[in-house]
């Protein structure tokens, strides 16, 4: 699970083709994505200043990223002043080692976990298991995934690929092996299933001594961490245990307390399409007799600095994991989350995973092709990440090679001509073209809206965005792009990139 590649994962087109053949999955996904998408549009329309909030969110993140070293050091000081301890992890292995060591030091062999993509990315549960520590997922969807020996398929609703009947069967068969068994005669009504989960998990919350979480935001100025959730399982894990360990990607820092006013407006509306999610917890170090008495923050790199080194690709680090881009993506809707082969599915996964992990594996080399470049993801993104631009940039990286940073070192990637990526591209294209109407509509949308957005920040912001003032690659329809890059370059042979294999 090193670097978080799902073991034995086929490249995107193969996985997608399989998913497209699964009609239950497609129907579930279609229902889910369309429901959330429509609700989101209404929630966003309530805020007359949405565009300005979006621009502010983008600039806060860009500003933080360009001074990331300074803000991380400030965060560290603030957290330690408030009674927490900060650890730094350059990669998954180091993070897992730190966390396992912290848990072992408590003498405990079980931990309760809040849903966290960072800990999934590093394969923490498996690493703890190897150390004899059992990690219980406590988010209902994550519980379904964990009990079902499954993988999450959506950022927000990880078990969206499961029907209520399947969930009932999983609870009946698996709950007893993990703790309190499912009640006798459990039916498949959502209320009964939720009640079964409540009872099963409550037993764990009330005896838990160690909690593990991620965070949606970290405030450098105050040392405050923020977790946004719906169910209350997060509050349980952040409040009842004696020791709290939070594993958070370094890109989650924001400079000031005040910055939360932007993201606490844009995140819930983009994500669950609600005015506000049911629960938000904020904690600053430790507080006497209220919540955990010991707090550890593990700051995680694991490919983020490599992503930061890429002038076009670094904007992916602005992502606040709202999942809006998944719900509008015609390719995600049909291929499903598993096809992306990482914890980050959909359009954001297609640009984030190949940057965090490099494009050395077949799945990662194929991910930049997992898109029709319709631009809908960019439209909805609350921090204005130009996903199509990064996709095209990464395609060129795969096909033409070039300079990149891996594990903190500059490397030169060889072009991957005639390599799996091209075959992948052909198949991905076939997938997108299976419904040409949707693709054409998407392309029109992209070229129409693209003109409404300035290509570069005005004034002094220009230096930062100058690298994004590129030729109009993203508006180029996929077919044209394919013609051009395939007909272009003269590379030959089966050269793989110079990167390590499947890092």
């Amino acid at each position: 699970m090193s670097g978080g590649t799902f073991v034995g994962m086929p490249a995107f087109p193969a996985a997608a083709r399989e998913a497209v053949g699964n009609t239950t999955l497609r129907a579930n996904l279609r229902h889910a994505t369309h429901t959330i998408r429509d609700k989101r549009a209404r929630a966003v329309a309530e805020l007359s200043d949405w565009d300005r909030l979006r621009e502010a969110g983008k600039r806060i993140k860009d500003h933080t990223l360009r001074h990331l070293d300074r803000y991380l050091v400030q965060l560290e000081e603030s957290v330690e002043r408030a009674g927490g301890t900060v650890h730094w992890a350059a990669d998954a292995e180091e993070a897992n080692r730190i966390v396992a060591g912290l848990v072992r030091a408590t003498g405990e062999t079980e931990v309760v976990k809040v849903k966290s993509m960072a800990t999934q990315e590093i394969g923490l549960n498996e690493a703890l298991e190897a150390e004899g520590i059992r990690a219980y997922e406590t988010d209902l969807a994550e519980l379904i995934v964990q009990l079902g020996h499954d993988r999450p398929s959506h950022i927000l609703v990880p078990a969206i690929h499961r029907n209520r009947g399947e969930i009932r069967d999983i609870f009946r068969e698996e709950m007893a092996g993990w703790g309190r068994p499912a009640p006798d005669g459990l039916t498949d009504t959502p209320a009964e299933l939720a009640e079964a989960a409540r009872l099963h998990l409550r037993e764990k919350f009330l005896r838990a001594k160690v909690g593990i979480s991620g965070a949606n935001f970290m405030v450098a100025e105050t040392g405050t961490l923020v977790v946004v959730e719906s169910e209350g399982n997060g509050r349980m894990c952040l409040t009842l245990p004696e020791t709290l360990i939070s594993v958070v990607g370094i890109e989650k820092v924001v400079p000031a307390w005040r910055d939360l006013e932007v993201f606490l407006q844009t995140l819930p509306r983009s994500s669950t399409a609600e005015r506000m999610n049911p629960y938000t917890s904020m904690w600053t170090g430790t507080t006497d007799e209220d919540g955990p008495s010991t707090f550890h923050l593990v700051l995680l790199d694991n490919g983020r600095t490599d992503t930061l080194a890429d002038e076009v690709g670094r904007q992916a680090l602005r992502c606040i994991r709202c999942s809006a881009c998944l719900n509008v993506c015609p390719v995600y809707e049909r291929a499903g989350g598993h096809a992306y082969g990482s914890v980050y599915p959909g359009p954001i996964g297609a640009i984030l995973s190949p940057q965090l992990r490099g494009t050395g594996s077949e799945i990662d080399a194929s991910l930049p092709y997992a898109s029709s470049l319709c631009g809908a993801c960019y439209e909805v993104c609350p921090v204005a990440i130009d996903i199509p631009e990064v996709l095209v940039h990464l395609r060129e990286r795969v096909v033409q090679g070039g300079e990149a940073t891996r594990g903190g070192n500059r490397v030169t990637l060889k072009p991957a001509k005639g390599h799996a990526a091209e075959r992948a591209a052909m198949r991905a294209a076939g997938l997108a073209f299976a419904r040409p109407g949707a693709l054409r509509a998407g392309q029109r949308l992209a070229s129409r809206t693209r003109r409404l957005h300035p290509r570069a920040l005005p004034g002094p912001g220009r230096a930062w965005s100058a690298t994004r003032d590129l030729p109009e690659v993203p508006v180029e329809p996929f077919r044209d792009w394919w013609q051009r890059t395939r007909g272009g370059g003269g590379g030959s042979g089966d050269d793989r990139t110079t990167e390590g294999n499947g890092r």
Partner: protein
Amino acid sequence: MSGRDRVLGRVRRALADVPADGLAYEQAVDRGYAREHGERTAEETVDLLAENLADYRAIVHRCTEDEVAGLLMRLYAERGSRTVLVPPELPPHWPAAVGPVRIHDRAVSTPHELDRVDSVLTGCAVAIAETGTIVLDGSPDQGRRRITLVPDHHVCVVRVPGQVVASVPQALERLDPARPLTWISGPSATSDIELDRVEGVHGPRTLEVVLMSGA
């Protein structure tokens, strides 16, 4: 090399292309967004809070300061609550002399003990009208985070209009980041099973908010 040096070194190398003379934070971020959405009187803001709380399936009541003890009694009676968990310092006139047994949260009380009480009563730090949110900050009339989490029934008294703000930006201005903060918008909910909303997976399944005027 420590993990810290390695990560910070990588960050600095990754940013080698970025000009050093970047904009200061204050200039880098345009705060041209709204401080609140729409113009409302204090009364209308309270109405909007009530509407949005109800929209998220909290049960909303209104009363004056004189009526609060009676209203609380009625809420407990309707629910059949025999025990009520209370934070260290509630305003003395809120709870009536008779009624359910009052349980005090003590550092030594275990989560299992909290799990056995029927209801919890608290005040709040601030309430946000546009989002239908109450925020608790652990002050003496709100108590520790866990008391509003484990019991199944939470009654929260909001002083109106004094504790009500219109928007998220206005709420953050009033809050102290050093305190442990819990923002609550409607009862606990999940949509994980076929996107059907189900109330209360873990937190209290019933949230009643008392908007108390004359304060």
